[in-house]
């Protein structure tokens, strides 16, 4: 009987320890999206925007940045765009920016019309995407640890450290908490 109780207790403790690290949708080390980059410095990467201008990620240092990898063919990516528009609208003038990285193989020819013409309902109003969009590719995905599923987002603090990685649609309330927490930390000197 004691052995049985000991076994159950052991399982329980293992379960508690195992479950302790399971956040709502925060991807942990060794996930499908490649080795975890959480806690590491943001990758040194330069994107191209839809006008062909270079956008080095480091140029956003000092801001809280949510890098959102998406594609026009990805339905859950489209479904979370109203949330992203809302975040940019709410925190865009408070030291935060979203950066949408479009992973479409056809690049600008398909992304630009989508960005310019597709309207999303945000708080009852029709809105187009209100945050910077850049183009991504496999090499860029590789620098973020190799990406398999979309949408996938990386929340980066003012000092350029990746704080969280989210696979799947973002939870607006959780994002509010995380962004506000990072915005309240001191800007990088």
């Amino acid at each position, binding site marked *: 009987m004691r052995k049985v109780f000991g076994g159950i207790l052991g*399982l329980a403790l293992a*379960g508690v320890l195992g479950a302790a690290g399971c956040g709502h949708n925060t991807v*942990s080390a060794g*996930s499908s999206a490649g080795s975890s980059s959480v806690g590491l410095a943001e990758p040194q990467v330069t994107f191209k925007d839809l006008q062909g201008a270079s956008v080095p990620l480091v140029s956003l240092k000092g801001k809280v940045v949510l890098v959102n990898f998406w594609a026009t*063919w990805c339905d859950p990516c489209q479904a979370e765009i109203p949330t992203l528009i809302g975040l940019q609208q709410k925190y865009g003038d408070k030291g935060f920016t979203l950066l949408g990285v479009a992973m479409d193989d056809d690049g600008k020819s398909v992304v630009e019309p989508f960005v310019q013409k597709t309207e999303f309902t945000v708080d009852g109003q029709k809105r187009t995407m209100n945050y910077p969009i850049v183009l991504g590719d496999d090499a860029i995905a590789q620098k973020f640890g190799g990406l*398999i599923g*979309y949408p996938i987002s990386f929340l980066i603090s003012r000092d350029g450290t990746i704080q969280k990685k989210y696979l*799947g649609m973002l939870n607006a309330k959780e994002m509010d908490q995380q962004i506000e927490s990072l915005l309240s930390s001191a800007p990088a000197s």
Partner: protein
Amino acid sequence: MSGKQGSRRVAWRAGVLTFAIAACLGSVAGAIAARQESALPKPSAVVKPSAYVSLEPVPRGSDFEVAVVIEIARGFHVNSHTPRDPYLIPTTIKAQPTAGLEISGTKYPKGRDEKFAFSPDKPLDVYTGSVTILLHVASRASAHLGANRLPLTLRYQACNDSACLAPVNVPVNVKFDLAPAGTKGRAVHSEIFASASASH
């Protein structure tokens, strides 16, 4: 051992047992959540295609059908051949040009309207489980006699209930024997072709 000690011990054990069960349930729930996040396969691993030819052998100069059965991994869907949203990538199959063989028609199954967690109000036109695409092939006099091969490319884009995988092209090789004109071909895999025809 007094009665009091005995009842304390029983109460302690009951407490431990309750804690253990609760913790185990929590652990299982955590493990499931973690697995959902970490179990995304490579895009090419979501669909397993198999090809079947309607005649054996295929007499040169005759028409025959090829059934491409695609098995979609549980928990995933791919867009049908006719998704509603123009930005979504349809499932397609294309043949590489092969001497003496001509695809004269392709029939895709109808998709199913399904709602997902990311699209609770807007049903998507998708394939799930197992579906069959039928190709009508004409063999010409210039077709190579003997062991033959018709290379096809299946293109699809898969998602589960929360995330999508990149679109992918998967090769499908159709192998068959081509016999001289006038040879009688035996109808084979008739259950696959009958079932596929009924669903188109």
